[in-house]
């Protein structure tokens, strides 16, 4: 394609091609410290393209494509091209990943032990992971945690942190020096701004961790902690994984092993500070 960039996030290599220069320039800049795909061969190809040739110039509209596509993916205006690229990369993972059990969770690590935080979007996964990282945890990812069925270890996928609405200011307050992408105002998901994970997260992204705790955070409730029964945790994780069924028996073994091996805990929290305190208290108790 006319404009292209390759990069690797954790173990996953991407090749992104675009009909326009701008999204590629933004990716180049924000992902400048990330390595190239292993052996220079990307796992997934992503395409940002105009459905009709004239759409490159007149009200340019970015279609999301690649190795794996959803027919209902709606195009985005060119000024949200970076968001389109991030969506397309996530989509390749969600639909194509087979080497790892993909858990829709943010993850942080300390002393080789990983805390996984899963839940609906808006539960505060990204914010929590960012705030914990600001307190000395290693950031592993805000969207996907990659569980290796062969080893039971979690691999990092520290893509750009996708901050929405109020989370933008909160994350910036925690990480005043962080590099930020452009503010993408009034996207279908509200205001979005991407934050580059800190240098340590990028430098250590090839280092996996042993899962230690599975959290189901929920924002907007009085602080509370309850243990999640294994069957409930299992079912919720099958639904929080886009490739659980596709993986077959290795996925079953990996997920039942994870649930049996570590505590599953739901935490309700009224604000980020309480959540950080709750998570750290739970980890200290272990």
């Amino acid at each position, binding site marked *: 394609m006319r404009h292209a960039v390759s990069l690797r996030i954790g173990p996953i290599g991407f090749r992104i091609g675009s009909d326009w220069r701008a999204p590629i320039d933004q990716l180049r800049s924000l992902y400048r410290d990330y390595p190239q795909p292993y052996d220079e061969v990307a796992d997934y190809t992503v395409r940002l393209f105009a459905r009709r040739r004239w759409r490159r110039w007149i009200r340019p509209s970015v279609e999301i494509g690649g190795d794996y596509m959803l027919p209902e993916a709606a195009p985005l205006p060119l000024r949200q091209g970076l968001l389109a690229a991030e969506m397309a990369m996530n989509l390749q993972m969600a639909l194509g990943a087979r080497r790892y059990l993909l858990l829709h969770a943010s993850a942080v690590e300390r002393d080789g032990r990983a805390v996984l935080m899963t839940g609906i979007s808006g539960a505060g996964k990204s914010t929590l992971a960012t705030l914990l990282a600001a307190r000395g945890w290693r950031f592993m990812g805000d969207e996907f945690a990659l569980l290796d069925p062969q080893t039971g270890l979690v691999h990092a996928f520290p893509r750009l942190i996708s901050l929405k609405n109020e989370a933008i200011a909160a994350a910036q307050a925690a990480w005043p020096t962080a590099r930020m992408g452009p503010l993408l105002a009034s996207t279908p998901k509200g205001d979005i701004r991407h934050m580059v994970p800190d240098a340590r997260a990028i430098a250590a992204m090839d280092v996996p961790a042993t899962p230690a705790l599975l959290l189901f955070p929920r924002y907007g409730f009085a602080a509370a902690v309850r243990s999640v029964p294994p*069957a409930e945790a*299992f079912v919720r994780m099958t639904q929080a994984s886009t490739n659980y069924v596709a993986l*077959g028996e290795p996925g079953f073994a990996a997920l039942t092993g994870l649930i049996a091996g570590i505590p599953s805990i739901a935490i309700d929290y009224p604000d980020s500070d309480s959540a950080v305190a709750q998570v750290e208290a739970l980890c200290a108790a272990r």
Partner: protein
Amino acid sequence: MDDAAPVTFRADPADARRAAPLDAFTAVYHRRSGITHLLTEPAPQILAILSEHSLSLDALLTRLSQDYDLADPMRDALAARLDELVVAGLVTAS
């Protein structure tokens, strides 16, 4: 298709499945279909018996009441459980 002989039920042998007990439920991966099922009592018990024997509904009810104290020995309830297992493909009726 219907005749006098009663329908008999049968399950694949136990090694056709991989099970992981989770509290009151058992997660079962069925190798042939690649589908995961979450089973609760009495489904695992029924599967265990039908993996070794082909039984009619009445014979299965008798067998279960020999092995267990049935809290509610209702034929209709057992028929409903078998129906679920047939729909899930874990048990065949013939």
